[in-house]
């Protein structure tokens, strides 16, 4: 045996290289498997999905054009689930009348957003979305204001949707509101 190896350096070298390559393949395969099944990576991916869905939904809920109310409110309902959806559906007729009278065009821009809580098992998450909302009345200049939104999302078969949405209350830590 030793004689064979000594007598054939080519074979020895080839065997050593093959062994090295096998080691590399084993390590690479394991590393790939580990990366593909990394729980925190999956969690991170979900976190980013939740943020994207949350920002989009919050923006949708702050966008409305009185000239195209039906589509706007359909988008609202598509972005919502649970209690929020029930509220929207219940108040829709009254809200439509209000907007038709006010004849406003509202648009929103997401300035920044963050996921504050994420429970992937329960399918619930909380987000903060900093918004700039611009309301254009039928006459006069558009008015912009910043809005500190807090949203809760719930996982549905069609993706993450808002189940609650509101503004961070102002001044609750220091007394009355502004």
């Amino acid at each position, binding site marked *: 045996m030793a004689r064979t190896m000594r007598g054939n350096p080519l074979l020895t070298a080839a065997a050593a290289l093959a062994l090295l*390559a096998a080691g*590399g393949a084993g390590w690479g395969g394991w590393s790939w498997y580990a990366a593909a099944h990394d729980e925190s990576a999956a969690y991170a*991916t979900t976190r980013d999905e939740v943020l994207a869905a949350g920002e989009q939904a919050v923006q949708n809920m702050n966008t409305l054009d009185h000239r195209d109310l039906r589509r706007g409110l359909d988008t609202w309902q598509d972005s919502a689930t649970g209690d929020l959806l029930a509220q929207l559906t219940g108040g829709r007729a009254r809200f439509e009348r209000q907007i038709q009278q006010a004849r406003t065009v509202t648009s929103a821009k997401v300035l920044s957003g*963050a996921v504050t809580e994420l429970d992937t098992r329960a399918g619930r998450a909380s987000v903060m979305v900093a918004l700039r909302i611009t309301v254009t009345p039928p006459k006069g200049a558009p008015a912009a204001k910043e809005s500190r939104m807090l949203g809760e999302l719930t996982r549905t078969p069609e993706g993450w949707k808002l189940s609650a949405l509101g503004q961070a209350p102002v*001044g609750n830590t*220091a007394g009355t509101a502004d």
Partner: protein
Amino acid sequence: MSTTRHLINRRRRLATAQAPRPAPPPPRTDRPDGPDRLKGPVRAGRPGAGEHPGHPEHPEHPDGAVRTGRPGSGGGAEDASPPRSRPRPRLPAALGVLTVLLGGFAAWATGEAAALRDTSAARNTALTDIARTSELKGQVTKAVNELFSYDHAATATADRAIRAHLTGKAVGQHRAMLAPVRAQAARQKLVLTTTVTHSGVELIDGDRARVLVYADQSNTRTAASKPETTYGAAMFAVEAIRKDGAWRIAVIDTLGAGS
């Protein structure tokens, strides 16, 4: 079977010892030998080729081994060298192919793993790294509370907060933001209090981070006979850098708002 192999090896060793200088290998005459006869010596002589110990031709082995070992034994000598030399280029070639395949897989798998790990989602450890996320939130909350609170009667506290929590560009930004307060503080006996109500970690990438902050502010003028307080809401983001185990605010992003 292994006893047979032992025997073979032993015989071969003995044979080598007896004839330290075997005759030069005879010309290749492997062809005429046919596959049946080749197998014996190949298996006997090559450790890598012994995967089939239960081969029906094994009884031939001792013969083959003797042949490989004894150069003088006529026809046996003719068989001996060819089987040894013939697989030589083949086995290294096979190993070479194997090396290329395995090496290729190794490179590919490592690349896939790196790609999976290097996505922006995976690099951002906000929320995934629970300890670091809560440490960051806690420290940024404390820093903002201290940095944006100002008591005309305790200006040293404010200066200490600046040294403790700010770095880089944020030092100048903070000075500009607090300048009006500082200018009026003494005369109006101002007490500005900032309380972070919500904070959310947008990003943690190693020692860099970005946090979205909602804060309430109350500003009390105590100079007048009747103190008056105004309340305000603030939202902004801070970029923080971890230095010496503590997060410091490096940039204050007012999200496009003035001030």
